[in-house]
């Protein structure tokens, strides 16, 4: 965890200034650090990281104004411990409520599973929800068979997880989608 600070500084330095010509060795060591498995990334085993292809054969000399969304220093938004506390309680809470919902709904193929910090909700042929923490961004990532991928940030004022693009609230989104899919309403708050 402490090693991420200098790493992020290096990344921002790399993106700001054109690197010197003989860069390959230092960049490769940087790339190798990126390949260290992150606990927050689901479904990726260490070996697949090592063999993941990098199509960056040259240094990423990118102009500063080529970014899409502005880079936010997420460490200042929420500390890692705070994030884990909030996210874990949200996810565990959801897990319990979904398990209860499963009993109520008696849906064929309904399955709630929590492993490696990833919550998976299977709804048989209707699709699968996957929810996980994305610690570097301080986000909860959701993959929904209805609304696709979304990334929720903690909104301190609303005390809720909100997807900035659509202003959707995580729990409300799940409530409405589950009611749509399974036919019975659910309260996840």
């Amino acid at each position, binding site marked *: 965890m402490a090693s991420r600070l200098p790493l992020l500084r290096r990344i921002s330095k790399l993106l700001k200034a054109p690197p010197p010509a003989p860069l390959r060795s230092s960049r490769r060591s940087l790339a190798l650090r990126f390949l260290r498995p992150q606990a927050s990334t689901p479904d990726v085993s260490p070996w697949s990281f090592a063999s993941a292809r990098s199509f960056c054969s040259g240094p990423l000399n990118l*102009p500063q*104004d080529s970014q899409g969304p502005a880079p936010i220093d997420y460490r200042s938004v929420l500390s890692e411990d705070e994030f884990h506390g909030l996210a874990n309680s949200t996810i565990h809470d959801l897990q319990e409520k979904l398990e209860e919902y499963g009993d109520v709904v008696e849906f064929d193929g309904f399955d709630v599973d929590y492993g490696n910090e990833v919550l998976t909700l299977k709804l048989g042929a209707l699709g699968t929800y996957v929810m996980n923490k994305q610690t570097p961004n301080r986000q909860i990532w959701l993959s929904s068979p209805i609304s696709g991928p979304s990334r929720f940030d903690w909104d301190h004022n609303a005390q809720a997880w909100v997807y900035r693009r659509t202003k959707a609230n995580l729990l409300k989104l799940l409530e409405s989608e589950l009611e749509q899919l399974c036919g019975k309403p659910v309260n996840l708050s």
Partner: protein
Amino acid sequence: MLRLMAKRLLGTASRDIPSRPLQILPRLYHENVIDHYNNPRNVGSFDKNDPNVGTGLVGAPACGDVMKLQIKIDEESGKIVDACFKTFGCGSAIASSSVATEWVKGKSMDEVLTIKNTEIAKHLSLPPVKLHCSMLAEDAIKAAVKDAEAKRAKMNGTLKGADVKSG
């Protein structure tokens, strides 16, 4: 190693089981993804300082995926004549950005903004956990178009004014 694993898995699948959708081995890479991984299209770089090149850089190394997608605009028609990408990440991320570069070619900038991550995900049969890769590809397209448009606006501004060098 991934290639070897993929070939072995594919080989097993085709020998024992008649080809069916992903029910049997849900964690297998779809053949479209493997195709893009083995035969990546449009990998490369354009000159970022070219006024007709738009560059979109999305993602973050800490998250596991970084995509750089570049588009080359034809000055007169405003259409995308060429595209290339460089991606650091999983097979699905590479395939998503590769597909994105294929789909933007020959289209206008407005048209490519309508490309949705759901279409990319469907084309590659991405599993739920990899849908985020397709969203990143969509974001990369949008970022590249935004950059290209900004450059065009800058250029037009420069042409209208005097010989003042902007940026």
